[in-house]
């Protein structure tokens, strides 16, 4: 019986430890946040004297146009950046799916951006967009004949700054979609394509009828992973533009950070983060559902 007890201990020990970590570090603080979101409290006053204020903070968040603007901006940034990344990553992976000259070197270079620390990416691109930086110089031969000074302050214009953030994101994360698609392509079973070729199918038919359906789970993974990450966008918007000019590049994460760490609006921030988590819960649930469904259909096909 002692042996049984130890066995059960071995099984449950890591589970209990991990759950304890999750509960003390994620669940407990979150309950606290719910409590604080119901107070009327700013960081400069003592916590004990804060007044209970009901749902005022939630109303304030929902009535704040900047909250909605930041949310909409984040979603549109994510949508644009992720679709470009998926398209480019897919094309690049397709170009490198078969053995070509210098394939390994290309792969090493293409995976490079993913390894660069996001903060450094923000810094790098801020260097490139400087008014006397390389981007201005590259455009100089095109602009100078028209009498436009090539020394453009790229990050001072709202649309250009937004494009800059998206470009930085595309630069870094196309490598991840490329990696996911490349591993998908390399796992494709060769027999099916061979058989189709023998039966006289064209390249085009093979791609649309065989490869693309087989790659569907991989595409779902790439979409889910990248969308989740893109909605968190924070680092480049701090280092590249600091949310500016105005609020043109203020993402939802940056907005929340500003409310709490710059304006000390703790209760407001707590309420906003609860609302954001509720919104995200829907998205996360959808993403996980898609992943699980792809996986189970695959299992069935594998067995059958």
């Amino acid at each position, binding site marked *: 019986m002692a042996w049984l007890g130890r066995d059960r201990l071995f099984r449950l020990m890591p589970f209990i430890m991990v759950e304890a*970590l999750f509960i003390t570090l994620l669940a407990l603080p979150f309950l606290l946040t719910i409590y604080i979101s119901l107070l009327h409290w700013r960081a400069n006053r003592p916590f004990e004297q804060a007044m209970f204020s009901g749902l005022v903070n939630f109303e304030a968040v929902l009535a704040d146009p900047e909250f909605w603007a930041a949310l909409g901006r984040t979603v549109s940034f994510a949508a644009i950046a992720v679709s470009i990344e998926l398209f480019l990553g897919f094309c690049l992976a397709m170009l490198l799916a078969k053995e070509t000259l210098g394939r390994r070197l290309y792969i090493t270079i293409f995976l*490079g951006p993913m390894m660069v*620390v996001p903060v450094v990416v923000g810094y*790098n691109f801020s260097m490139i967009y400087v008014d*006397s930086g390389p981007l201005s110089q590259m455009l100089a031969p095109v602009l100078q004949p028209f009498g436009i000074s090539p020394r453009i302050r790229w990050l001072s214009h709202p649309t250009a700054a937004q494009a800059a953030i998206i470009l930085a994101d595309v630069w870094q994360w196309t490598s991840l979609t490329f990696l996911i698609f490349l591993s998908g392509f390399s796992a494709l079973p060769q027999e099916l394509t061979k058989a189709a070729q023998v039966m006289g199918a064209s390249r085009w038919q093979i791609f649309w009828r065989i490869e693309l359906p*087989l790659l569907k789970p991989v595409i779902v993974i790439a979409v889910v992973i990248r969308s989740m990450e893109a909605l*968190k966008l924070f680092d480049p918007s701090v280092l590249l533009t600091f949310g500016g000019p105005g609020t043109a590049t203020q993402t939802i994460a940056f907005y929340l950070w500003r409310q709490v760490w710059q304006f000390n609006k703790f209760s407001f921030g707590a309420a906003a983060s609860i609302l*954001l988590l509720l919104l*995200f819960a829907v998205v996360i649930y959808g993403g996980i559902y898609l992943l699980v469904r792809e996986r189970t259909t695959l299992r069935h096909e594998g067995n059958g």
Partner: protein
Amino acid sequence: MMAVELGHSQRSFRWRRRPFRYVRHVLLIIWALFCLFPIFWMVSTSFKDAGEWISWPPHWLPQDPTVLNYKQIFAFAGADTGLSRSATDHAFNIWKALGDSLLVCTLSSLAALMLGTWLAYCVSRFGVGGRNFRYAVLTIRMVPPIVIAIPILIYYAILLPYTTEHVLGRRISLYDTYLGLGLLYTVTTLPFVIWMMLSFIDEVPFTLEHAARLLGASRFYTLGRVVLPLVASGMVVTFLFIFILNWSEFLLALTLTQPGVSTLPVLLNKFQSAVEGRLYGPQAAIGTIITLPVLILGVLIQKHLIKGFSFGMIRK
């Protein structure tokens, strides 16, 4: 075998493919240049003298290469670097930031790896936590860090000191401590460890363990001597992967550790907002130093990443 077959099929398609071969390489080279350019520019800037940082027209390569930027951030030369007082204050911090980053990232990655591997083994073999545990764990990773950061800030800086003062009579705060940041890094990378180690452990056949158990080995002995050696390379890849994640983490470090503990990404950001305008050169040098180890580690695990990133979704 495969190569021979491929070669044959390619020959029959050759007349159609030939013009495309050059287009393919042109496209690939354009993308490669696009990938390399920002990194090249950073390294090039890090060797430029102060006057060249934002000169017009920009110099693609430093005209007069200098290691002054590196000297400044490591404060080798002391007074003769020509930087003002506040910049030299920053300069003394890079050793601390480097040490802090290494310490926090290594220890929290190790803790996450050990705990996560053990849990992954139990989930894989005994189904601990139910059928959808692996997906439930993944949800934690998907929560945006800013949503975690606000509760944690309140928890570390207010609730913990408040309760410990009443219960123990001493204020204990986790804000701006190694333990506080390390615990958080452990928790946020655990889902990745569990997810990745599950895919490695699922591949190990049961029979070896049964044999070991029949011969009288304990659970721990079986795990340590039979299973773990078989997934050792997987553990190395997982460790390097989460180490890179922790090494580049910015938001939590920025919000939860201001003056005391400071990791490298936070240090880079400090140079950004330094009083005397932007110090592009030293920033480039710091950026190069942060990026280099991660790029090397990344190239080392690249082969495994390609294999492992389909998450076992496609079976051969």
